[in-house]
C-alpha cells in the first residue's frame, strides 16, 4: 500500500511538473520544472529496471540539454520575452480542445485495445533492462542502428558548426536580418 502511494506521488510529481513547464509564463521557470520532470522520469526508468537509461537520462537530459536551454534563454531574452497577448482567442481554445481530445484518445486506446495489461511487470529475473542485457542487445543485435546514430551525431555537429560560423560572419559584415535594419 505504501508502495502504491509512493508510485502515485511520483506520478503526481511528473504530471505536475509537466503542467508547470507548459503553464508557467516565465521560460526560466519552465526549464526548472523540466528538470523536476526529467528527474522524475529517471526514477520511473529505475523502477522499470532500466538502470543504464536512467543514468543516461540524468546525464544527457537533466545535464547537457538543460544547460543548453538555460544558456539559450538567458542569451535570447535577458530583458523579458516581449510576447504580446494573442489577438486570436479562438486559436487558443482550439489548441486546448485538440490537446485534451488527444489525451483522452490515447487513454481510451491504451485501456481499450492493448491486451496483456493487468499483469504485474516482471521486475525480478528480467534480463532486458540491466546494463549487461542492454549492452548485448546494442552491440550484437542492433550494431548497425548504433553506428547510424554516431553518424547522425556527426552530421548534427558539422551542421551546427557551419551554421553558427556563417551566422557570425553575416553579423560581422553588418548583414543583419530584417528586424535590425
Amino acid at each position, binding site marked *: 500500500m505504501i508502495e502504491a502511494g509512493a508510485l502515485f506521488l511520483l*506520478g503526481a510529481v*511528473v*504530471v505536475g511538473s*509537466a*503542467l508547470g513547464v*507548459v503553464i508557467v509564463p516565465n*521560460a526560466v521557470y*519552465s*526549464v526548472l520544472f523540466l528538470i523536476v520532470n526529467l528527474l522524475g522520469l529517471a526514477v*520511473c*526508468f529505475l523502477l*522499470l529496471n*532500466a538502470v543504464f*537509461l536512467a543514468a543516461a537520462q540524468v546525464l*544527457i*537530459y537533466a545535464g*547537457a*540539454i538543460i544547460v*543548453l*536551454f538555460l544558456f539559450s534563454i538567458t*542569451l*535570447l*531574452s535577458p530583458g523579458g520575452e*516581449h*510576447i*504580446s497577448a*494573442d489577438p486570436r482567442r479562438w486559436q487558443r481554445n482550439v489548441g*486546448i480542445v*485538440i*490537446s485534451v481530445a488527444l*489525451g483522452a484518445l*490515447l*487513454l481510451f486506446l*491504451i485501456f481499450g485495445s*492493448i491486451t496483456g*495489461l*493487468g*499483469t*504485474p*511487470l*516482471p*521486475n525480478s529475473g*528480467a534480463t*532486458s*533492462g540491466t546494463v549487461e542485457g*542492454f549492452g548485448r*542487445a*546494442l552491440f550484437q543485435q*542492433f550494431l548497425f542502428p548504433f553506428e547510424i*546514430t554516431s553518424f*547522425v*551525431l556527426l*552530421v*548534427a555537429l558539422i551542421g*551546427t558548426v557551419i*551554421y553558427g560560423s556563417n551566422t557570425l560572419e553575416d553579423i560581422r559584415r553588418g548583414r543583419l*536580418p*530584417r*528586424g*535590425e535594419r
Partner: protein
Amino acid sequence: MIGATEFYLTLSALLFAIGAAGMLLRRNPLVMFMSIELMLNGVNLAFLTFARLWDNPDGDIFTFLVLTVAAAEAVVGLAIIIAIFRPRQGVDVDEIDEMKG
C-alpha cells in the same frame, strides 16, 4: 487499484498530451522545444514499459536512439532559434514571417 503497467502507460499518455498542448498553446520557441522534449519523454516511458512487459530489449534500444536523436535535435534546433531571434527584441514565433508568400 490499477497495475504498474497501466500506471506508466497513463503517465506516458498524459505527458504526450501535455507536451502537445504546450506545442499548440505557447508562442515562446524555447518553451515549444521543451514541450517537444516532454512528448519524446512520454514516448520513451511507453517504450520502456512495453520492453519490460514483454521482457524484450527492443524498447530499451529504441529509447536510447530517441535519447541520442533528441540531443542532436536540441542542439541544431537551439542553434537555429538563436540565429533567428538573436538580432531581434524578444522571442515571439508569430513575428517570424520572412517566408510568408
